């Protein structure tokens, strides 16, 4: 009756080069090897650009450049470093629209999210840590905390530019220099960030960007002259990195997977809980480590809540990520789509009931409809393994104690959500949930001032806030 006409954000604003080299010592350089990779738009499978694959020798060049720059950057007064970081933050704000379009093209996330969530948070992170650069003596880490040196940082494809900001902003504020490897499926905003570093006149070598896949990351992590390793990604790769770094002097922070419980009590504000569940698992196609992928709902409201949730899901708009009215974009890669499919099929095979709204799927590209599984048991794979896609497993509980038991019964411990109008119950739950973040009556809320990180197999170390400084200081 009221069909929204297509409202695409113009992609003319971005200028993607046919091919990219590596950003080392403030210059674009060709890789020493022959390795080249292509990055595609997951919504159309169109090749966006050719990207260099950095080998060990390239990583070595980048680390050497960072080592050289460390002498300059770490000796600079904090107030001077802050000027550069503030400048970067302002340039990001000025170029926010361009970066948002680029992020949506390369990652497949809806422009509404890259525009309204990712980019504002990216700028906020740089602004926040710029403010710390000249106040480190008052951060609670002693009178004159020192930087570590060269940070090797490996980031995932789900929030490419935001994860870059989480890594680079605190590192630079504390006086470290960095070599960063973006994910192989989403390198373009990191490469655009390299341009921003030049635009901001950042001294050469302070930020180096090397592209490539797992081998490049492994070379960076294993490089003997790296002092600090920061990784966000899967628990599987996190384990490899921990093993590779073990026994060295390298300081390590890991932000890994999750299987968060979003717990809805019978007294919750129902309509807002439904929004929170949707935001918890369908935000960014569920490609979120802290996604609320397990819905635990009190049995007395389970039916009502599920009806409301299904009704709400049928209003979700899946399609062109650049359309300003799109709610669900494309799955980032064919490999990820295969993984989501495999786990969903396992869910059906194990006896859970699968439901998706009627939802037309585009012909080209990688897509998965929003999906709910009901009748899920704790032992099902879909209740235990991280799916990293728009798939929600629904379980019920009777008592708060049972909710806590089920929520904590996972090897992960990154986040949790509690929906209740009762303050005492909320605090009771929060003190028992083994999760780095507990959201109450909201979900997937991020702020640079707030520390973020996990328990158990969700990793260690904290990013964001004052706590996030510790990972980049010799303390």
């Amino acid at each position: 009756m009221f069909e929204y006409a297509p409202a695409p954000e113009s992609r003319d604003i971005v200028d993607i080069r046919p091919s990219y080299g590596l950003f080392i010592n403030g210059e674009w350089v060709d890789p020493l090897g022959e390795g080249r990779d292509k990055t595609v738009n997951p919504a159309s499978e169109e090749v966006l650009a050719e990207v260099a694959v950095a080998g060990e020798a390239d990583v070595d060049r980048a680390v050497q450049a960072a080592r050289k720059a460390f002498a300059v950057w770490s000796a600079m007064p904090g107030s001077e470093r802050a000027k550069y970081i503030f400048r970067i933050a302002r340039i990001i704000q000025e170029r926010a629209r361009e970066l948002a379009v680029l992020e949506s093209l390369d990652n497949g996330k809806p422009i509404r999210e890259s525009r309204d969530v990712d980019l504002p948070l990216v700028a906020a992170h740089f602004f926040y840590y710029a403010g710390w650069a000249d106040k480190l003596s008052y951060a609670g880490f002693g009178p004159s905390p020192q930087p570590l040196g060269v940070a090797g940082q490996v980031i995932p494809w789900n929030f490419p530019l935001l994860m870059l900001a989480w890594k680079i902003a605190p590192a630079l504020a504390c006086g470290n220099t960095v070599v960063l490897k973006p994910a192989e499926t989403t390198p373009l905003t990191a490469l655009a960030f390299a341009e921003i570093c030049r635009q901001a006149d950042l001294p050469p070598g302070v930020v180096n960007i090397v592209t490539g896949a797992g081998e490049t990351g492994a070379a960076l992590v294993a490089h003997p002259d790296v002092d600090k390793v920061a990784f966000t990604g899967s628990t599987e790769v996190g384990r490899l990195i921990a093993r590779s770094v073990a026994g060295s002097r390298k300081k390590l922070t890991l932000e890994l997977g999750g299987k968060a419980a979003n717990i809805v009590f019978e007294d919750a504000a129902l309509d807002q809980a439904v929004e929170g569940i949707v935001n918890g698992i369908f935000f960014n196609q569920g490609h979120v480590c802290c996604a609320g992928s397990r819905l635990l709902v009190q049995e007395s409201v389970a039916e009502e809540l599920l009806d409301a949730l299904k009704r709400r899901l049928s209003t979700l708009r899946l399609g062109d990520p650049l359309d300003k009215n799109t709610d669900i974009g494309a799955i980032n890669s064919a490999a990820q789509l295969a993984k989501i499919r495999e786990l969903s099929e396992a869910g059906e095979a194990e006896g859970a009931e699968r439901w998706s709204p009627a939802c037309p799927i585009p012909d080209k590209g990688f897509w998965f409809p929003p999906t709910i599984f009901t009748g899920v048991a704790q032992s099902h794979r879909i209740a235990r393994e991280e799916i990293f896609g728009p798939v929600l497993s629904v379980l019920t509980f009777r008592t708060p104690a049972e909710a806590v038991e089920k929520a904590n019964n996972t090897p992960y411990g990154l986040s949790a959500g509690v929906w209740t109008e009762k303050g005492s119950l909320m605090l009771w739950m929060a003190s028992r949930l083994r999760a780095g973040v507990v959201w109450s009556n909201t979900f997937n809320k991020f702020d640079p001032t707030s520390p973020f990180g996990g328990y158990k197999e969700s990793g260690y170390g904290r990013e964001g806030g004052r706590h996030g400084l510790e990972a980049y200081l010799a303390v």
Partner: protein
Amino acid sequence: MSTTTTPFAEVAASTSTLRAFLHGLPGVDRVGADARAAMLGTRSIKTTAKRQAIDLAIRMVDLTTLEGADTVGKVRAMCAKAIHPDPTDPSVPAVAAVCVYPDLVATAVQALKGSGVKVASVATAFPSGRSSLEVKVADTELAVAAGASEIDMVIDRGAFLSGDYLTVYEQIAAVKGACGSAHLKVILETGELATYDNVRRASWLAMIAGADFIKTSTGKVSPAATLPVTLVMLEAVRDFLRTAGRKVGVKPAGGIRTTKDAIKYLVLVNETAGPDWLDPDWFRLGASSLLNDLLMQRQKMASGRYAGPDYFTLD
């Protein structure tokens, strides 16, 4: 009390049963409701969708004048505009209704005869509602006798906020009785209700007492209609249809001045109560200056240029 829909007869038996029912409704989280309304406000309605939305919005307008200084001449002029909002373009649809004070109903009825545009009248000691039930009923009967087909009543906010739900219920039911075949819109005056929980409770109270429409505001209190308040009311009518099997309309009124605002409300309806409510029978926009902006945008969509404000009549 003959108008009570049967499933709620027990609920309305006493103040305590009403209270137990209304306070048993799920709460509304203000932060979450505001965020949802703001998100829906970012929907981008362009080209064909915008054209469709503008015409729909025009058909939903309750063109309103509620001033002490209203005259017979002003009401006649407004009625002429209601029938042909843009005299230069016959493809512009008529608005849904005109809304006036009871003493001007007869004038409006005469001016709108045969046009299909309905006449709504405020009643029940509008805008404050501070009078006796007898006066409120008489006010309603006066407007209905003069030919009003829709009555916009105000609730007794003092009674509602003090927890005297039964008084509010009985007044609405009595006014509904006095309406006869006229449709009853119940104005909650959400700007005075303080919380979204109260908006939800007042919405349910009005619906179980027999309201055909629930309306946000008189336009005399600030804030008047807002997106989150309308969201909460749309959720209420959606849930009421499911539980009681009766469909109730929603009318935000006051403060809706631009096409952009109006379209945000249509998006809200579309994605909350659903497309079934996207009809002048089930959704109205109480406004006056909004109409000219809709006409201006409509002309711009057709010609590619904006005409100056002097090309649209001020009535």
